[in-house]
């Protein structure tokens, strides 16, 4: 049990992708280079200082080895890589075609170079002039740079306002290797600390964001919340037990079912899933809130002068029925495709059954024969002495439920929360800032993606190049803002061969060049290195993805050209989709079984919605299963209805209440409602037990009050969590359980005594 792996990434709480394309993309988002990006901002100092710090931090991180790439606007390529790209310029430059090296084109190129030489500004490509008079290297680099160019100061990136230096780093570790991500983030602060030391400066404002950073932050919040909620819930449960029974002995004994519930829950989840999510551990707290009811019922029914075993046997059928019905509700949930929810359900079923069993078979042995707790019972006495509530109150409760139902039906839209981001504990403002900075750096937005599948990498590149020609028209028409694809960085071998074959033979080039040089001040042999380079390029084999391993370009390529099970996939990311109709028209024109269009935001939304509908149906099945078990246990349709009714009334009012508070309902509210139904059945069963004497009736009531207090407190504590999932469960269960108690009390019609023949 101690070795149970605790996972804390949020992906367990995302539904599994439905189509292979979605699965690939989800996986890529989880594991791929985009998930490894860390955005670093430095602020709170003068621009000069920040620019210097940016360079120093980048140098340290590059040397540190935890990052494969650290970009801050300084030179993009290392010397070796630049050399390689320069060698391949005639195959990689998008400007190369047969016309490029005609006498006329060359003359125009030389005139342009001459004008540049006249410029008073320093030219970074001046040293390459003799080898590259047509400026192919420049054409290549500007094609790669794209439209978005971050603002620069002293050669390093700054945000739009010029207040913060920006760095973009890619970790060597996977995005969801949280320990490694945390180390990488520490390395950033250390690098900054050292750079500050070098610069003799005390501190600047460091900001780190990105998927890995958010994952680590989520984990930390989950850990902190689990601990805080666990301790608080335990303290509250202890306090309630102490106040209710004023006995240390009962407190210790009452803790046993709770411990067994948590232990059984962890073991069951570990056995079934091999690991347990941190959130599910936090959820264990809620199981305590339910399981505590069992020992409370027992303690409340201990009678002076009656053997403990008999009291236990007396209430056991009720506890058993309550536990089994609640478990049935969760069983319906456990068949879902949502790993996190399945763990929830497994934990709850194992925990509740263990707590019930522990109450039944372990506690009696620990209590002395004929033991009865001594506690003042003003509540019990009052309830025993008062008449049962008038029927009118029950009808009022049902009327309230009908009003609530009417309110819910009158609303046009179902208030569902299908945005997956809403599940994350990271505040939306932080995410928005991250997106804004990424956009300034031109990091591709992966919401709109075209996915082209092919048998091998080259075929995927070729297919994406064909699409790119059409997409360029869409950009020109303003239908989409821009697009990005692997072939932009490394064209297919076919395209490279086409460019290569368009290069003129040496004699022809010489002739064209001689024509072009007439009337220019260039030396006759000035461009001999160029002639040599073109001649050499004519025999170059195309540059392949494999040749670029561990280079900047290779890393860039790996974000958009991916191996899959049975082939390769090229991703084309689209930015600024303004005219979805035009895009759809383009797609239907190019319809192909291996071309998929993903609108990730829309797709995850619909995935969540599908899943939520699926879960809603399962919740209904759960309620039906509960009703069925109740019907079998109670052998009376009327009593089944009476026991079930408080839960249904409570759920309707609960939902209306949440809706009035403006809360959007998620999957997790649905699950909570099921829990409310389960707990309300306990209440319904005990209220309608038909206890033989007023004293017993009073004690039952006392027990129920303790139950509802502890459950509402524990879930109320959960509602204070920063985690949207726990918050949803906490608030809806706390409200629902309080309502259930009220409804059960007002609607209860005590049935026949469970043991009329054996009654004292």
């Amino acid at each position, binding site marked *: 049990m101690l070795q149970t792996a605790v996972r804390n990434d949020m992906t367990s709480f995302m539904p599994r992708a439905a189509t292979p394309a979605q699965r690939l993309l989800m996986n890529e988002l989880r594991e791929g280079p985009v998930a490894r990006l860390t955005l670093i901002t430095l602020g709170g100092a003068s*621009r000069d200082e920040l620019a210097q710090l940016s360079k120093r931090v980048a140098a340290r991180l590059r040397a540190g080895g935890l990052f494969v790439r650290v970009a801050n606007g300084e030179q993009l390529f290392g010397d070796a890589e630049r050399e390689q790209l320069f060698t391949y310029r005639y195959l990689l430059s998008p400007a190369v075609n047969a016309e490029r090296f005609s006498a006329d084109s060359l003359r125009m190129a030389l005139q342009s170079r*001459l*004008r540049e*030489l*006249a*410029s*008073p*500004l*320093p030219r*970074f490509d*001046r*040293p390459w*002039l*003799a080898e590259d008079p047509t400026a192919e290297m420049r054409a290549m680099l500007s094609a790669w740079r794209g439209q978005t160019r971050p*603002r*620069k*100061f*002293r*050669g390093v990136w700054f945000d739009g306002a010029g207040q913060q230096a920006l760095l973009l780093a890619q970790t060597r570790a996977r995005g969801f290797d949280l320990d490694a991500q945390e180390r990488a983030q520490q390395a950033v602060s250390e690098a900054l600390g050292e750079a500050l030391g070098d610069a003799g400066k005390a501190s600047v404002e460091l900001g780190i964001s990105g998927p890995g950073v958010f994952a680590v932050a989520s984990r930390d919040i989950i850990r902190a919340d689990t601990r805080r909620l666990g301790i608080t819930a335990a303290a509250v449960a202890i306090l309630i037990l102490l106040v209710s029974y004023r006995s240390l002995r009962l407190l210790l004994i009452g803790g046993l079912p709770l411990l067994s519930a948590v232990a059984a829950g962890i073991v069951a989840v570990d056995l079934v899933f091999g690991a347990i999510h941190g959130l599910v551990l936090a959820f264990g707290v809620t199981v305590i809130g339910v399981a505590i009811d069992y020992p409370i019922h027992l303690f409340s029914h201990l009678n002076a002068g009656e053997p403990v075993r008999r009291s236990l046997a007396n209430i056991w059928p009720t506890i058993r029925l309550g536990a089994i019905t609640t478990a049935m509700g969760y069983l319906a949930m456990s068949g879902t495709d949502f790993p996190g929810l399945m763990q929830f359900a497994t934990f709850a079923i194992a925990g509740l059954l263990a707590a019930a069993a522990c109450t039944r078979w372990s506690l009696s042995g620990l209590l002395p024969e004929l033991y009865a707790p001594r506690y003042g019972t003003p509540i019990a006495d009052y309830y025993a002495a008062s008449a049962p509530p008038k029927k009118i109150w029950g009808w009022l409760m049902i009327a309230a439920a009908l009003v609530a139902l009417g309110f819910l039906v009158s609303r046009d839209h179902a208030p569902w929360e299908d945005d997956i981001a809403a599940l994350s504990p990271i505040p939306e403002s932080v995410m928005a800032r991250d997106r804004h900075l990424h956009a300034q750096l031109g990091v591709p937005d992966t919401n709109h993606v075209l996915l082209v599948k092919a048998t091998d990498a080259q075929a995927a590149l070729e297919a994406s190049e064909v699409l790119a020609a059409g997409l360029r028209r869409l950009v020109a028409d303003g239908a989409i803002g821009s697009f990005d694809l692997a072939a932009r960085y490394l064209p297919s071998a076919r395209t490279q061969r086409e460019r290569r074959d368009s290069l003129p033979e040496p004699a022809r080039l010489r002739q064209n060049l001689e024509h072009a040089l007439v009337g220019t*001040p*260039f*030396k*006759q042999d*000035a461009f001999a290195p160029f002639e040599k380079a073109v001649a050499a390029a004519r025999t170059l084999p195309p540059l392949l993805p494999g040749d670029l391993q561990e280079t900047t370009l290779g890393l860039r390529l790996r974000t958009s050209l991916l191996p899959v099970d049975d082939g390769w996939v090229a991703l084309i990311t689209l930015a600024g989709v303004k005219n979805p109709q035009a895009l759809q028209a383009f797609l239907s024109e190019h319809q192909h079984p291996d071309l998929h269009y993903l609108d990730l935001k829309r797709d995850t939304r619909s995935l969540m919605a599908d899943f939520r509908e699926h879960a809603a149906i399962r919740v209904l099945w759960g309620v039906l299963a509960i009703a069925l078990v109740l019907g079998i246990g109670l052998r009376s349709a009327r009593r089944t209805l009476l026991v079930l009714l408080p839960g249904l009334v409570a759920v309707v009012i609960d939902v209306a209440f949440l809706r009035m508070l403006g809360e959007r309902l998620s999957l997790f509210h649905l699950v909570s409602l099921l829990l409310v139904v389960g707990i309300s059945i306990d209440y319904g069963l005990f209220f309608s037990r038909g206890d033989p004497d007023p004293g017993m009736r009073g004690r039952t009531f006392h027990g129920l009050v303790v139950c509802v207090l502890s459950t509402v407190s524990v879930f109320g504590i959960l509602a204070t969590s920063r985690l949207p999932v726990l918050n949803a469960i906490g608030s809806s269960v706390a409200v629902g359980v309080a309502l259930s108690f009220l409804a059960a009390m007002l609607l209860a019609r005590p049935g026949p005594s469970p043991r009329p023949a054996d009654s004292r």
Partner: protein
Amino acid sequence: MISGEKAERIGNTFVAMLYACVLAASPHMFAQAAPCADAELVALMRMLSEVGAAGGKFTERKYLSILDEPLILEGKVRYRAPDYVKKEYDDPNSESYEVSGDSLTIGFPDGRRRELSIDEHPVLRAFVESYRGTLAGDLDTLNHYFDLALSGRMDAWELRLTPRGPDLADYLIAVIMHGREGTVYSVETLEASGDRSVMTLDSPGD
């Protein structure tokens, strides 16, 4: 005579250095590792800084290793204190360059204009400041990017700017200015590529 004058100047300089180091050694100067200001340099800079506007027609000769003959460019350059410089060429196919504060505007022959920050690239500002900073007599700025060496007399001085940072040295070996009192009349640029250019003002002050 010249050697006598030189000896005297070295003596003066030495005293001035001592004086400056002892009395005026602000932490700022140490942080910049700036040389103690040469008294004559300070005097020259003051003279330059008192000039509110300068410029005129120029002829620029660019001696490039790749060309048979030097490139000869003619045009007009205009300076207005403290930070405005415009350089335009007579050739209608040439671009014009206008620096004001931190921004550089390039005017293309077809009328398009492109504005960029001179801080975008680390060596760009240094290039601009070598000329603008000298015209403005801005010693602090010049010291930030260059080692300065002044020689000659006030009516025929030579100021040599040598880059301090390795980034700049990749492009530039030195900029050498010639002038008479508060007027600069030629700028020679020695680039790391081996290229060299000399800009001479035909009618300084016009």
